[in-house]
């Protein structure tokens, strides 16, 4: 670990002032950033611990929820309103990491967690454009079973590892951001960037900007939603494929749907194309499968991850069938 200084402001203004410094990073629960610092992959000179900032989960006037960025993942997953109105979010959170990690990890930190690409982690012995811009990518022709097939670029094929973000992407969540100049909001689906030529730039956040909360709009159909994660062991593993879905069926026809995918893309992947293919169509397994397949029309499989499209299609179909069925 490289030596660093540590600050723990108690309000956003102080955090933003300190966050303007070069080499500053905001720290949530530290469940990812501290690991990366131990490996010297992240080398912030100043850590600004923002866990003292608001982490409450509050009702909003429009019938949604506003989750403070410092809320612990466990608190969100256990929250009564989250479980009742956005069950996919609670399930996505508990599908990730371990109880101990979820107790520490914050919502803001979860948004900004970094990829689990093996070569990103191997700072001493492997090349990674995300870690060292322009260095090259050892994953594209290496072990890439866990890597992305959607949203990739010749520079990077790393997946975004979060489960929570997949549910947030499906739920039309909006990220509240503050900077010294004021505040703005960004849809979760626009927070993460595709890697393109600059995989090292992972979000649209400007230097010093601070995530202060996540708003969940009222979304009645989300009361009937699911998160299913497919992984190499039953617990404590990142997704090979995950599916967050909410479905509203009326008279055998899909009235509305929300669908997002994890494990297959370089960012939490809202399946816009599949949703479009589903709306106002009969809620049949064939249509579910065709819609999911449409989402993968432009998938770019690599040496080891060719199974992911088929797995995602099957899993998506099964999740939608289940939501349509019972």
């Amino acid at each position, binding site marked *: *670990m*490289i*030596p660093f200084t540590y600050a723990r402001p108690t309000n956003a203004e102080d955090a933003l002032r300190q966050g303007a410094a070069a080499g500053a990073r905001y720290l949530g629960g530290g469940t990812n950033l501290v690991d990366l610092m*131990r490996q*010297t992959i992240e080398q912030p000179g100043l850590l600004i611990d923002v866990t003292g900032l608001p982490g409450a989960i509050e009702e909003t006037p429009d019938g949604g929820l506003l989750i403070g960025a410092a809320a612990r993942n466990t608190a969100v997953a256990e929250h009564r309103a989250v479980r009742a109105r956005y069950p996919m979010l609670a399930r996505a959170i508990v599908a990730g990491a371990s109880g101990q990690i979820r107790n520490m990890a914050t919502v803001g930190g979860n948004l900004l967690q970094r990829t*689990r690409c*093996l*070569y990103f*982690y*191997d700072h*001493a*012995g*492997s090349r990674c454009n995300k870690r060292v811009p322009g260095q090259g990518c*050892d994953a594209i*022709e*290496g*072990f890439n*079973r866990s890597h992305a097939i959607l949203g990739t670029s010749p520079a990077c094929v790393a997946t975004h590892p979060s489960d929570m973000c997949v549910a947030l992407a499906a739920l039309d969540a909006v990220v509240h951001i503050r900077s010294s100049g004021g505040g703005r909001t960004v849809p979760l689906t626009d927070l993460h960037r595709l890697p393109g030529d600059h995989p090292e730039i992972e979000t649209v956040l400007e230097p010093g900007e601070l995530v202060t909360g996540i708003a969940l709009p009222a979304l009645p159909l989300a009361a009937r939603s699911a998160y299913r994660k*497919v*992984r*190499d*062991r*039953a*617990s*404590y*593993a*990142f997704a*090979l*494929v995950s599916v967050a879905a909410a479905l509203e069926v009326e008279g055998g026809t899909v009235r509305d749907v929300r669908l997002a995918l994890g494990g297959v893309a370089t960012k939490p992947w809202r399946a816009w194309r599949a949703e479009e293919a589903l709306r106002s169509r009969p809620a049949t397994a064939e249509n579910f499968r065709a819609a999911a397949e449409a989402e993968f029309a432009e998938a770019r499989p690599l040496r080891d991850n060719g*199974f992911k499209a*088929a*797995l995602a299609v*099957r*899993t998506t*179909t*099964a999740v939608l069938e289940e939501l349509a069925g019972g």
Partner: protein
Amino acid sequence: MTADAGAARPARVAIAPGPDGWAGGEPDPLIRRRGGPLGAPVSRVDGGLKVRGAARFAAEVPLASMVYAALAFSTVARGRIVRLDTAAAEGAPGVVLVMTYRNAPRMTAVPALLSPAPNGAMGDELPIMQDDRIHWNGQPIAVVLGETQEQAGHAASLIEASYEAEPAVTSFEEAKRRGGEQAAYAGQPLSLQAGDAEAALSAAAVKVDAVYRTPFQNHNAIEPEAVTLAWDGDDLTVHDSTRMVSRVAWSLAQAFGLKEEQVHVSSPYVGGAFGSKTLWQHTVLAAAAARLAGRPVRMALSREGVYRVVGGRARTEQRVAIGAQADGRFDALIHTGAMAKIRRNYVPEPFISPAMCLYAAGSLKLDVRAVYLDMLANTFMRAPGESVGSFALESAIDELAERIGMDPVELRLRNEPAADPGSGKPFSSRHLAEAYRAGAERFGWASRDPRPGGRRDGEWLTGIGCATATYPHLRFPGGAARLTLSKDGQARVEVAAHEMGMGTATAQAQVTAERLGLPLEQVSVAYGESSFPGVFVAGASQQTAQIGAAVVAAHRALVAELLRLCGGDSPLAGLGVDQVGARGGGLCSLADPRRWLSYASILDGGDRDEISAEASAPPPAEAEHWSMHSFGADFCEVRVSAVTGETRVSRFLGSFDCGRVINAKTAASQLRGGIIMGLGLALMEETLIDERSGRIVNPSLAEYHVPAHADVPEIDVMWTDIPDPHAPMGAHGIGEIGITGVAAAVANAIYNATGTRVRDLPITPDKLL
């Protein structure tokens, strides 16, 4: 001298001392002992210490003025270091020493495991930081000592190296193309031919012939390797995490040109080993750096460090072919293939071991080739050979059973051999059929539907499978023990043996209490010090037998000493060691149990407060007379998602024939632990070595999967409890039998569930789509 009345003592029958050798067919009298401490589910004696965190492990021993070590590792597989810039590290805060090949003390090569040297313990025989040569990707190139662990780690990250890379073989396929050599175990070629198996296969009525693959795996004991050590002049004290204290002491003496008694190795607690925790570079480097710095050193490997420095299980590619008659009898059994190793170690992956002992076959062709890569040396990992060999063999048996249309249990039992198929020796104890029948009944095997893919519970396909477990019973030479008895009735065993979590001290206290006729609470077992008697190895599931035979020898010597103390007027006067027995805290005549004298009285009579005897176990000649193995029948039920290919093991039963069980509680834990590790082997464990660089790219518990709690169902274990009449206590070691057969039982159950036969481990969801 007082002759107590024997009748006033507890009514247990006197127990004679164990035999003075194990080749004569004279069984250990303990075999007949039932209802006492032996076999009881005694809780481990160190359980409280471990729960309270009071058991001090190697990385927890505090030494005055100690410094902390961190390692820097090479990033090429083969070549030379051409630049090694340590200036920034040397100038970093808190740095005490940066050691590289340029300033490391000259050290003599340390003999490797299974090398012709008697006490080899090193993972390989490569030079340790003695020159600029790189032999594997991840080799330590520098040791940094710092005042804190963080300072040492920070400085190590500042070391910059460049290499002149040389062509390296880092691809298994390339290694195979180059041919390799006949693999050998301790000098014996791993090859056996009987008859013309290929011709018999061609002519067979029914045959299977397939290739099975198992991946590289790494050790992930909960305690990463660690050592805390200090020099005092030319004396070296080492608090190590090892399962070979005496061999480590001897090896370090070789490295630094010392006498063996100048090196003291202490390893009272080891947080799991499974084949690791022998001697790897970090220990030698810690000692070298401590000598150079003149400060005590703690070297606790990071998890990544374990992957870079400590070897794991070798990759294998195995062909199994069986030719059978229509009634299931084997005409030909072929098990051949390749395992990956380095040139400069001696550890093969002898995957033909199960085929050498499990089945009668008209002809045999068994062979292991070693193919060579430029990588970290492979090493032992729980049931080396049997764990992966049984996957291939027992999968093939399942495939054959389906082809013949016979129940796989029946097919196995039909081919039970009368004697060892390889050596022709009689089995010392083989009750596999009983284990199968008992296990099948408890598991409900009779309800099995042999049609693959026929049963469904929602999206989950269900199936069951079975496989045979086997592991040899071994007893290494070198066992010795000191047994001390004091007037207050306390007995103490001292052995240079090891406790890695399996309950050594507990089990051996139970045994010794029975031998001496003392209550369990009055017996303690001291271990884990190289200064104690014997050269023990907690490996090959043999330590229980090795200690057991040593304690018998020491006990015989102690009884002889006690009888010498008895005067002419003693009730025991004139009796020899084999004429007396232990009973009720004393000795009595076996012929006339009323002639009894308490140990206290004997010591009193001899005017002694305590008496001590040390003796060595006789050489393991029993292995020349008998084929000695444990066996087991594994039964597994799985659920496989028809949607995602995810496998969930829903039930597992291991029914074992592993001799007399000494402690029903720790034995059950050992067997369950082995089965859990087998589930990892079957479904998830795999070291990813990038073949472009020879580099391990998943050196972390996040990316290298071992079973989590949610992967482990309730595991039922049972045993025949039939003693092996030729083994000390009638017992077999059980550290490894549990993992064997498991991967095949899982694979066979998956086939039964899905109709998909997976011959490549691990069986991940993508292989079942």
